[in-house]
Every structure is written in structure tokens, then in C-alpha cells.
């Protein structure tokens, strides 16, 4: 299935959760803020957020800034 992450199309397996996707990408979930189809996902819900075909995800992290 295909989902849009940060504006780019990604392929991922059916049944994947946000948490398993991040782990597969080698990204530490503690450093991520996620918006799933326009709504903020709290960190403790990453493991229960199931990804579906056509979903849109925004994944952000803190960077240096003034």
C-alpha cells in the first residue's frame, strides 16, 4: 500500500503501525512528532495507529532554530 509521508509517496506493508514504520526506518519514536491525516498523534498512540492505503503522515522533529 502507498501512504504519503511529508509530501512524498512511500510504500509500506499492510498492518504496519506508525511505531513499526518508524522503527523500520531507523527513527527513534521519542524524537518524532506526528500528524496523521491532519490530526496530532500523541507519542503513546504510535503503537496503535494503524496505517492505511492513501493515508497522509507528517513526521517532524526538532532542529536548531532561533
Amino acid at each position, binding site marked *: 500500500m502507498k501512504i504519503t509521508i511529508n509530501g512524498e509517496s512511500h510504500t509500506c506493508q499492510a498492518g504496519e503501525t506508525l511505531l513499526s514504520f518508524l522503527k523500520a526506518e531507523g527513527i527513534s519514536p521519542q524524537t518524532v512528532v506526528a500528524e496523521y491525516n491532519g490530526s496530532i498523534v500523541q507519542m503513546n498512540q504510535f503503537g496503535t495507529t494503524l496505517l492505511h492505503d492513501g493515508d497522509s503522515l507528517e513526521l517532524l*522533529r526538532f532542529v536548531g*532554530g532561533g
Partner: protein
Amino acid sequence: MLLEVNEKKGRNIMEDQLIIGGKEIKSRLFLGTGKFGDDHLIPKCIEASGAQIITVAMRRIDFHTSQENMMQYIPKDCILMPNTSGARNAEEAVRIARLGRAAGCGDWVKIEVVSDNKYLLPDNEETLKAVDTLVKEGFTVLPYMTPDLYAARRMRDAGAAAVMPFGAPIGTNKGLRTREVVQIMAEELDLPVVVDAGIGKPSEAAECMEIGAAAVLVNTAVATAGDPVRMAAAFGKAVQAGREAFLASPGAVRQYAEASSPLTGFLHEA
């Protein structure tokens, strides 16, 4: 008249507290974390400067490059203030602020709404809308703004915890080019005025404090200095010195010389 103003300003430094969002802030220097050639310098600069309020930005994760988690460089006892840089209107600023809070770093936010990429000047009207929304959601909101007394009053009425007018455009190191308006804002507003952006040298940070600013936010000046840690320490001292000078009430400026030594008892007197 001058005496009146000075008397109004003169305060006991022992009672000199900076309270923002109900918190006593230990340092009047706020430090940004962008543009550091090496992020390992960030905790050293925070320590050297004594800064307590630290700004960060939020960006999309880039899957094509490996990125470090910069939060590891910010000591846990700091107050983290995410900015909404990248926002072009109030709606985007609100969205970024909510995401920052969801990341679990508290409820402070620096509103930054910019749609002019050449000078990065903040849009006061959109900023005010974002302040209004976010205050109602319980954020401690510090708007970065174009210096303007009336706009600042509206920010205050909307519940801003402080206002942050620029000294010069972001990253220019030009100093306090907005001195007149910032001084009036500091005098007339009953909430802290933090000079944010454009300050390039410690003397300029001291100048901000001497005219009554409550604090100064610097980033580029420290991050791009030859020795950022040493520059951070210099800014920490400058802000303290400037604050003390403000509290001490500088003496009057005069057109003509006035001798500091007595004008009697000279050797040549008859």
C-alpha cells in the same frame, strides 16, 4: 522631566525579577540553537551564557539523510521555546505550535509568522491571530514582531506573555536599528519586551538592556562567532551589565562640557 523618568525607572536590583508566564526567569539572555557549525557547542554556549530560555525549530524529517536528535544537546533544566518558523500565516503557526507541544516540551512558544523571504519581517496581523488562538489553548506565547506600540498592546490584550520586537532583520548582526520604537515600547508596555533578532555584538545587547528591554534573544551572533562559547559568555555578561545600568539610571546627556574636577583652587590663582 528627565529626573522624573529616572526616578520612575530606578529600582533596587535585589528586587529585580523577570517573570514570564508565571515563572521567574534566571537569565535575561535567551539563546537560539540554529546555525551552529557543531551542535556539541550548544550545551557549552548555554552554560557559558547562563541562558535558561532556549529556542528550537521544527522541521520535517528527511528520510534521505541521517539526522541527529538535537534535543540531546539541551540541558533538561532549560525552558524550551519552540518557534513557529516556516509559518506563513496564523493557521500554520498554530499548527506548528500544537505539534511542538505534542512533542512534550512544555507550553512555551515563540510565534514567528513570516511571508517575506528577503528580510524575514514578521507579519504582526497574522501573528496577533495566532497569539489569540494559542493563549486560549493555554500556551505561554511570546510573539516575534515588527516593533509597533499599538500592535504590541493588542498582543498584550490577547494574552501574550511578552513581546519580542526585532532589533534588525534576522541574522544580519546589524544591532539595535529599531532603538526609538523599542525604547518607547519598553517604557509604555506593562509586559516584558524582549529584543529578538539582529543583535550582533554584546555591546548592542547591553544597549537593548540600557533602554529598558527585559531580555535579549540572540542566535546568529553566537553561533557564527569565531569562538561561539566565548561569545556566549560575553553576551551573558553584557545583558547583566546593561540591566544594571538601566536600574542605576544613566546620568543626563549634556551639550557642553561640565568639569568632573573642581573649578577652584588652581595653582595659578592669585
